């Protein structure tokens, strides 16, 4: 949220006002049902079982004295097991993110349950398909999930399963309605929470549950607050907090040297999650594991909805991310320009301001791809319109920016100014797609434009209508070079409880807001994405969102919201983004410089250095922040920031490859060390450094005045510092210099190959035809390999095979550059390989280097610097094939 001086007066607010947001004790269901630290109540017994749906689902009836009967559906999908629980005969239907009018939403339908093998003996009932099995105790409903006979996780291990019975209103029941500050929640259906525990066996480390600001390894919550997932617009959030933030993914990954696995609690209501790590001596989970193993206990509690638990077997973290994104949607392949540098500010004030910023990038020789316009560009915060005074000729302005290959982004928020003369307001009113008050009247709340109505993005009709608004003929002065930013989509309602919507507000099909809250922001971004597809079906859309949920990865990037210009926020960006990455959300970033406040140039520079190595790279600043474009602080700062940004452009070919891999398999470009070194236990808590793919190790400076970094090099592998040819390779622990005129310490892992582009133009678009450089780091056997990805950078033609996926390998003598088995047919007419740089080659030059391509051979020249060999001008096509022999 970007509350301005106008709203706050001139009071300086230094920190989040915690009183505005609920703790567990302020939320009646959390206070009532947070039973994590207690023993389970008397357990449910399985009283009836039958296979249904062509033997693909096992339906169990669960009963215990004094509580309503429950129905549990067990199934095994190709990617994991699913446990779905609700009452046998609920008084009202319970919301299910799947049970929506458009079930393709979460792609679950595409992955139907498999045919089950049933086994019932010795008091257990098991279903099996392939390598996966769910085994349930009939006496007490405890269900083990195993993969290849190894128990991975256990649902309801501690008998904490509880479904609050839906019932007729009883006026004497104090928990029926609820007040928070001045807001009353009428809660017409009364208490309806659901909860269950999941234990990961043989696990000491859990990760995930974005978005929070505490450590990357999830903390033990016994003593403090649980993790809260409830998308909220939190003004000036703080570090080391488990408070809810702008987005939430109810996903936990467990990792141990032997295995990674994960759980998804698919519920769109407010959710609290408790975590506890248990020593082997106290472990409880399994009937099978011989001997005691460490356990990680989780407890999940949601305000409403069903229990819908997915357990993913791994066994590697890469497979976990693959399984999760098969189920919930693959990450979008972004247009390449979106992976370059973005310049944002609340606000570039008018057209001359935009023209000057655009021009200054060229004057100061800094590349940039996108200039952003925040809310002030509109006519009175009416989205899809332009301020006629400040932005009288948007077409000309956008065209001028686009003439350097750049794009523009305008903000389009989901709250609509109540004004009958505003075509969006009246159009949506006529289409009857606003969120309603319980009585059926249009809900109005306070946001940027003042009194606003909120489009109901859980309604497919509303999304369709919204998408239409992005057609070129509808969105006046939009152009193929204009893309979109969806902010405030938690949704943010300034005068609502916790700065959001009342929970008894009514959505499509009569669902209360409490049931669909986490789906709202996702719907906004999805509808905008679909709008951009409508206007231009073959261009890859670009929509940045602040709120997110399960599935957001399909529609575009998110950023971590309104951070502050503080060193602690710079540091926190790493664990925040890593948590998102392991939770299947790969295209993520934090505002460079920090949104609130005014960074000293040193902080801003260090942030540029780090941001250049994080997936979504955008600088942004508050309305009241001083200007801080990279040239504002003059030298030496401009030069340092320029160098930092240029690094991003050099490495765009690597980012291309990483985003493609992410799109195909769900693995994030930005990874914790343990992602690549699963058995290296020392790396499990590391959040001061990370890796890009399995190729680069990034070890930034994140402290004021610091000039060295202590770097941990994992796995006994050698790492070469990029561009430092006189320095020997590192391994183990080392102190690396990162002084004033030095680059961020970034290291190339021995054995890896990646491509860079060394000719840095004004924008990534203008680099389309440029040659590439191959960077190779030799391992101890003098071998290396890597993959390269090329396509047209911007359209969907890659889906029709218009891409080139290269495999490059070096065996100590020969370099083989050829198509991988998964390649397409794309050919780049102009791009060629202009240089090959081999780290760790040794100090003596080779006798001869011969290249052969397309039947012709020629000799190449080379040069040694330190122990790096530079091979001059191979001149082979980037999308072709060649072999190179070094004697």
């Amino acid at each position, binding site marked *: 949220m970007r509350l301005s001086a106008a709203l706050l007066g*001139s009071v300086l607010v230094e920190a989040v006002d915690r009183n505005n947001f609920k703790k567990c004790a302020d939320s009646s269901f959390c206070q009532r049902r947070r039973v994590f630290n207690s023993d389970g109540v008397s357990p449910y017994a399985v009283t009836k079982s039958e296979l249904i749906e062509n033997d693909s689902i096992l339906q169990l009836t669960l009963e215990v004295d004094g509580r309503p009967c429950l129905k549990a559906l067990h199934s095994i999908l190709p990617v994991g097991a699913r446990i779905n629980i609700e009452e046998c005969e609920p008084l009202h239907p319970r919301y299910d993110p799947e049970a929506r009018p458009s079930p393709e939403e979460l792609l679950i339908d595409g992955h139907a349950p498999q045919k089950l093998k049933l086994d019932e003996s010795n008091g257990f009932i098991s279903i099996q398909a392939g390598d996966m099995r769910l085994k349930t105790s009939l006496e007490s409903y405890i269900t083990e999930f195993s993969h290849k006979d190894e128990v991975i996780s256990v649902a309801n291990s501690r008998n904490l399963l509880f479904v609050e019975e839906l019932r007729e209103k009883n006026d004497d029941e104090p928990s029926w309605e609820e007040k928070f500050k001045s807001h009353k929640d009428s809660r017409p259906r009364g208490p309806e929470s659901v909860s269950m525990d999941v234990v990961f066996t043989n696990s000491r480390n859990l990760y995930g549950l974005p978005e929070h600001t505490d450590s990357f390894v999830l903390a033990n919550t016994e003593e403090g607050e649980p993790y809260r997932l409830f998308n909220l617009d939190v003004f000036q959030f703080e570090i080391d907090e488990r408070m809810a933030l702008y987005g939430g993914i109810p996903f936990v990954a467990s990792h141990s040297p032997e295995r990674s696995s994960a759980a998804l609690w698919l519920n769109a209501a407010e959710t609290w999650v408790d975590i506890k790590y248990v020593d082997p001596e106290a472990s409880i989970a399994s009937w099978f594991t011989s001997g005691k193993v460490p356990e990680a206990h989780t407890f999940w509690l949601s305000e409403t909805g069903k229990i819908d638990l997915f357990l993913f077997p791994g066994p590697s973290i890469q497979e976990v991310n693959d399984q999760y994104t098969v189920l919930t949607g693959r990450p979008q392949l972004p247009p390449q320009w979106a992976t370059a540098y973005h310049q944002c500010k609340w606000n570039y*004030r008018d057209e001359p301001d935009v023209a000057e910023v655009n021009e200054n990038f060229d004057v100061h020789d800094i590349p940039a791809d996108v200039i952003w316009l925040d809310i002030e560009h509109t006519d009175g915060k009416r989205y899809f319109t332009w301020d006629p005074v400040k932005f009288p000729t948007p077409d000309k302005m956008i065209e001028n920016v686009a003439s350097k290959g750049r794009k523009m982004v305008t903000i389009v928020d989901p709250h609509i100014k109540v004004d009958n003369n505003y075509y969006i307001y009246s159009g949506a009113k006529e289409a009857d797609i606003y969120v309603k008050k319980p009585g059926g009247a249009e809900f109005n709340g306070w946001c940027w434009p003042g009194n606003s109505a909120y489009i109901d993005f859980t309604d497919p009709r509303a999304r369709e209508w919204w998408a239409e608004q992005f057609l070129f003929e509808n969105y006046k002065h939009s*152009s193929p070079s204009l893309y979109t930013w969806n902010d405030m989509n938690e949704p943010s309602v300034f005068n609502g409880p916790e700065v959001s919507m009342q929970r008894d507000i009514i959505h499509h099909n009569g669902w209360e807001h409490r049931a669909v809250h986490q789906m709202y922001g996702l719907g906004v971004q999805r509808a905008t994405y679909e709008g951009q597809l409508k206007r231009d079906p073959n261009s890859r859309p670009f929509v940045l969102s602040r709120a997110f949920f399960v599935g957001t990865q399909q529609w575009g990037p998110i950023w971590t919201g309104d951070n502050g210009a503080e060193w602690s926020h710079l540091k926190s960006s790493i664990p925040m983004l890593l948590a998102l990455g392991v939770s299947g959300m790969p295209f993520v970033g934090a505002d460079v410089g920090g949104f609130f406040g005014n960074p000293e140039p040193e902080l801003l520079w260090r942030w540029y250095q780090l941001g250049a190595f994080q997936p979504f790279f955008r600088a942004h600043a508050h309305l009241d*922040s001083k200007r801080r474009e990279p040239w504002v602080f003059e030298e030496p700062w401009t030069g340092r920031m320029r160098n930092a940004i240029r690094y991003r452009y050099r490495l765009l070919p690597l980012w291309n490859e990483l985003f493609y891999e992410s799109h195909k398999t769900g693995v994030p470009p930005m990874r914790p060390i343990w992602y690549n070194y699963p058995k290296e236990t020392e790396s499990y808590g590391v959040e001061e450094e990370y890796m890009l793919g399995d190729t680069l190790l990034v070890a930034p400076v994140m402290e004021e005045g610091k000039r060295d970094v202590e770097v941990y090099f994992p796995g006994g592998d050698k790492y070469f510092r990029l561009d430092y040819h006189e320095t020997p390779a590192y391994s183990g622990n080392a102190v690396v210099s990162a002084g004033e005129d030095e680059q961020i310490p970034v290291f190339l892992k021995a054995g890896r190959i990646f491509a860079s582009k060394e000719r840095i*133009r004004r924008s990534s678009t203008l680099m*389309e035809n440029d040659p590439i450089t191959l960077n190779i780091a030799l391992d101890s056997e003098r071998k290396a390999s890597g993959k390269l990805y090329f396509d047209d*950078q911007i359209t969907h033609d890659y889906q029709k095979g218009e891409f080139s996926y290269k495999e490059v390998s070096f065996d100590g003598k020969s370099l083989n550059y050829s198509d991988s088995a998964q390649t397409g047919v794309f050919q780049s007419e102009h791009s060629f390989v202009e240089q090959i740089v081999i780290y760790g080659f040794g100090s003596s030059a080779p006798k001869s280097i011969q290249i052969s391509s397309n039947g012709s051979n020629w000799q190449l020249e080379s*040069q040694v610097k330190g122990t790096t060999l530079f091979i001059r001008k191979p001149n082979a096509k980037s999308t072709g094939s060649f072999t190179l022999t070094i004697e």
Partner: protein
Amino acid sequence: MLVVRRHRNGEFVFEERRPPQNNLLTLVIMALMFLSFQANLHRHMQAQQAGHGSHSFHERNKYGGPQRNLHPKFHHKLEEEIPIKVNGTLLIGIRKEERKRYLPDKDANFLCLDGKQTVKFEQVNDNNCDCEDGSDEPGTSACDYHFYCEPEHRYLRSKLVNDGVCDCCDGSDEWKGLTLSDENKLPREGEGVRFTPCSDVCYDYELQEAVRLDVIAQGKEIKESYVKAAEHLDNFEKANFGRNGEFFKLSTLCLTYRSPTYLYKLCPYKEATQDDGTKPDALSLGKGGVLNLSDPNSPKLLMPNGKGDGCPSGISRSVEINFMCGVADEIAYVSEPSTCLYRFDLNTPAAC
């Protein structure tokens, strides 16, 4: 203008000529010169190569310094006579006065302009960066170097060469004739930027340039009267009014500027105000004035201490005046780049 294409083996060949109308004659003459020269040179280079081994591309300069030992053929050539293609190497992106330095020495080598490195002459403009200082690639984008845009008498950064955007008014920076793919196609028109294929717009450029120079010349003349107006001040008093007191005159003036929303009144060195017509008093944006000449090309006057109401905590409004050379004192534009910081772009002869 020449449009050339690079062969697979790195050789440049002429593909098509698109002579701009006003340069047609020059081009014909150049072409004729080039043809007769090429024949001679070719014979000679063959003789040269027969006598010398090949050089490693990073070989150090044997001659100890930037002193060039030119091939005898080139000894007495005037810059104008040096053809655009020498021994197969295109000498583009090079300022006329520097042409002489881009000729092969007697060993068919090129001495990098910093004098620290020798590379083979064929490595000049071969689209590969060989000199540490980048001087072997004045005509391509291979090095962080520069390309000379002849008609505008200025250097362009090498990164502007062959990137699909016409930067030099004759389009010579886009000699490779590259256009971006359909997917990445740039819009047709933009302010001050032109797209490949380029058209020759040097006439417009020259016109603008003439106007600009004329403004400077006239402004400088008027500036003398500004200096005179400060003659009565002693050096101490002058200190805040520029090197020769030329900004003093502005302190005796008040100027106005009307934006769609506000009326701005600026009395440099005294006070600047903003009036939205709704309140009895205009809002003070800044008072007094401190001249900042740290960037001699862009003098500024800072006027701090305006009203602080409604500003981010702890700051009050302030004004920064950007002086630009003009023939009269007038406010060109007022903006608010950061909340409560106002920028006045002011044309004045004092800045000429």
